[in-house]
C-alpha cells in the first residue's frame, strides 16, 4: 500500500516536472495537471494511510481512534482539487490567448531587455515593430 502510493506520487511528480520543463504551453498544462494529481495523493496520505475506515466520528464517545481515519487531509484535498481545477481552466485560457496573439506556444519569453540588436533598428517613431514595448493603444477586440 505505502509503496504503491509513494511510487504513484513519485511517478506523477517526475512526469509533471518533465512536462513542465518542455516549456510548450500544452505540455506545461498537462505537467501541471499531473503535479496537482501528485500533490492531491500526497496530501491524502499525510493523514496516514488507512483502508476501509470512516472519516466521521460515530457519536461523541470515542473508544478506539484506530478505527477512524483523519478527515482533515480529505478536506484539504477537496480544497486543493477545486483550486487546481479552477487554476487549470485559467491557465488554458491564458495559453490560448497567448497562442492566438503570438502565434506560438512557447512559455518562456526572452528577457525584457532582449533583443539588444533591435534597439538600433527600432526607431522611437515605430515602437511597435519589435513587439516588446508597452502597448498603450486600447486593444481592438476582435470578436
Amino acid at each position, binding site marked *: 500500500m505505502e509503496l504503491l502510493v509513494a511510487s504513484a506520487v513519485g511517478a506523477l511528480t517526475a512526469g509533471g516536472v518533465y512536462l513542465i520543463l518542455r516549456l510548450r504551453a500544452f505540455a506545461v498544462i498537462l505537467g501541471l495537471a499531473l503535479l496537482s494529481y501528485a500533490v492531491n495523493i500526497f496530501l491524502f496520505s499525510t493523514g496516514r494511510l488507512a483502508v476501509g475506515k470512516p472519516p466521521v466520528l460515530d457519536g461523541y464517545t470515542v473508544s478506539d481512534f484506530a478505527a477512524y481515519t483523519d478527515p482533515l487531509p480529505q478536506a484539504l484535498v477537496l480544497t486543493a482539487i477545486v483550486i487546481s481545477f479552477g487554476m487549470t481552466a485559467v*491557465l488554458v485560457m491564458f495559453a490560448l490567448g*497567448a497562442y492566438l*496573439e503570438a502565434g506560438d506556444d512557447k512559455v518562456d*519569453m526572452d528577457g*525584457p*531587455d532582449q533583443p539588444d540588436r533591435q*534597439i538600433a533598428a527600432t526607431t522611437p517613431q515605430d515602437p*511597435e515593430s519589435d513587439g516588446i514595448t508597452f502597448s498603450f493603444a*486600447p486593444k481592438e477586440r476582435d470578436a
Partner: protein
Amino acid sequence: MNHWIIAPVILPALLAPLIAFVMRHDIVLARAASSVGTLALLAISVGLAIMAANGSVHVYYLGNWPAPFGIVLVLDRLSALMVLLTALLAAIVLFHAIATGWDNRGNHFHALFQFQLMGICGAFLTGDAFNLFVFFEVLLIASYGLMVHAGGKVRLQAGLQYVVMNLVGSTLFLFALGTLYASTGTLNIADLIVKVQESSPGDDGLIRVAAMLLLIVFGVKAALVPLHFWLPATYANAPAPVAALFAIMTKVGAYAIIRIHGMAFGPENPATGSLISDWLFVLALVTTAVGAIGVLGARRLGSLLSYAVIGSMGTLLLAVSVFDPYAMTTALYYLVHSTFAAAALFLLADLIIARRGNDWLGVQPATVQNGLFAALFFAGAIAMAGMPPLSGFLGKLMILDALRSPELIGWAWTAILLGSLLTILGFAQAGSGLFWKSTASPVSDPGKTAAASGDQAKTDTDSLPATALAIAPSMMALCLLVVLTVMAGPVTTYLEATSAQLHDRSSYVDAVLNGNTREAK
C-alpha cells in the same frame, strides 16, 4: 470577538462580485464603488491599526470553532501594519488607474482589483497556514487577470509565464503543507509554534524539509534569487497601476517568511536551527547583487525598476534572515519604505512612458513636462537607491547597523553598499538618458510626433501634458516617503513594538489557543 477583524476580507469580497455583475457596463459607477470601497478599507485598516497598537493579539474564530480546529484570523501589530500599508497603496494605485484611464482599457479592472485586495488582506490576517494558501490563490488568480489587463501579445506571453511560475509555486506550497501536517499534525500557526518546539527528533528531518519547501514558495513570491526570473518580465509588461500594486505582492512573500519562519522555524528552534537563517542570508546576498547588476544593465525603464525591486527585496531579506528583534524592526521600516518607493517609481514611469511612446532608456527627443518628470524621477531614484535625505537612506542605515555582528558584517555590508552604489549608477545613467541628454535634441511638437508615427491612439491624450490629477498619485507616494522620513522616530518606536510582539511567541500562542487577549509589554 471583534468582527471588524474580518472586515478587510469581507468588504472587497462583497464589493467585487457586485462590481463585476451589476456595474460592468458602467465605468463611472464601477469607479465610484471601487473608490468608496478602497477608502472604506483604508478607514477600517486605520481602525484596526489603532486597535492593535496597544499590543494585544486579537483573534477572530471563524464559525466560532476553537483554535487549533477551526480557522482563525489574527490581528497583531504586524498584520495591522501590513493591512494599513495595503490599503494606503491601493488608494494611491486606484487613484492613478482612474486618473490615467487605465481601468477603462480592458474589462473588469475594478472587480479584479477588489479581489486582489481581498486576497492580500486575507493573507496578512490569517493565522492558519492552509488558509494562507487559499488567500495566496485568491490574490494570485486576481493578479493573473490584472496582469493581462488591456491585453497585447507580449503582455499575454508574460502573463502565461507568470501563471505557470505561480502554479508550480502553489503546488510546492501544497507539498510543503502536506509535509508539515504529516510531521506536526496541525496547520494553525500558533499550534505549529508549539508542536515544532515539542517535536520528537525523529520528525526533525520532515520539519526541515517542510520549512525549506515553504522558504522556496515564499521565495518565489518575494523574488528571491534564483526564483526571481519571473519578476522583470511580469512587472515590466504589466499595466503600470498593476505593477505598482504588485509592489505589495513581493512583500506578501517577505511577510510570510517573517510570520511563519520567524515565528515557527526561527534559529532558537531545535528542529531547524540556523538552517533557514543561513540559506536566507546567502540567497538574500545574491539577490541584492543580482538586483544591483540588473539595474545597471537595464535597457528598459520597466526592467530597471523591476531589478530595483529585486535589489530592495534582497536588502530587506538580509535583515529578515538574522531573525532578531532589532534587525526585524529595520526590516519592517525598509519594507514600508520600499513598497511606496517602488509604487511611486512605477506610477511615474507610466506617465513618462506614455509620453515617450516606448520605454527604452536611450536618448530621444524631450517630451512635454521634461523638467517636472525629471525632478520626480530624481526624487524616486534617491528613495529607491537609498541616498539621503529620503527614507531609503534611513532604512539602509538601520539595516547596516543591525547587520553589524562580526560574522555578518563583511558580506552584508559589502553587498548592500556596493549594491547601493551600482543602483545609484544605474538610476543616474537612466535618468540622464531619459531627461538630461534628451533636452539636447530639439523639443518636438507633441501633436506632430504622434501624427508622424501614425499611431492614432496616442494623438489624443498620451502626448499631452499630464494633468495634476494624473501626477498626484505618484506625488502622494513620494510624500508618504517624506512623511516616513520625518516621522522616522515614532514609526520606528511602533515597529520596535511590532518586532517585540513578533518575538514574544508565548503571548501569541496563548492568545490564539487559549483566547487570552492580554496586553503585551
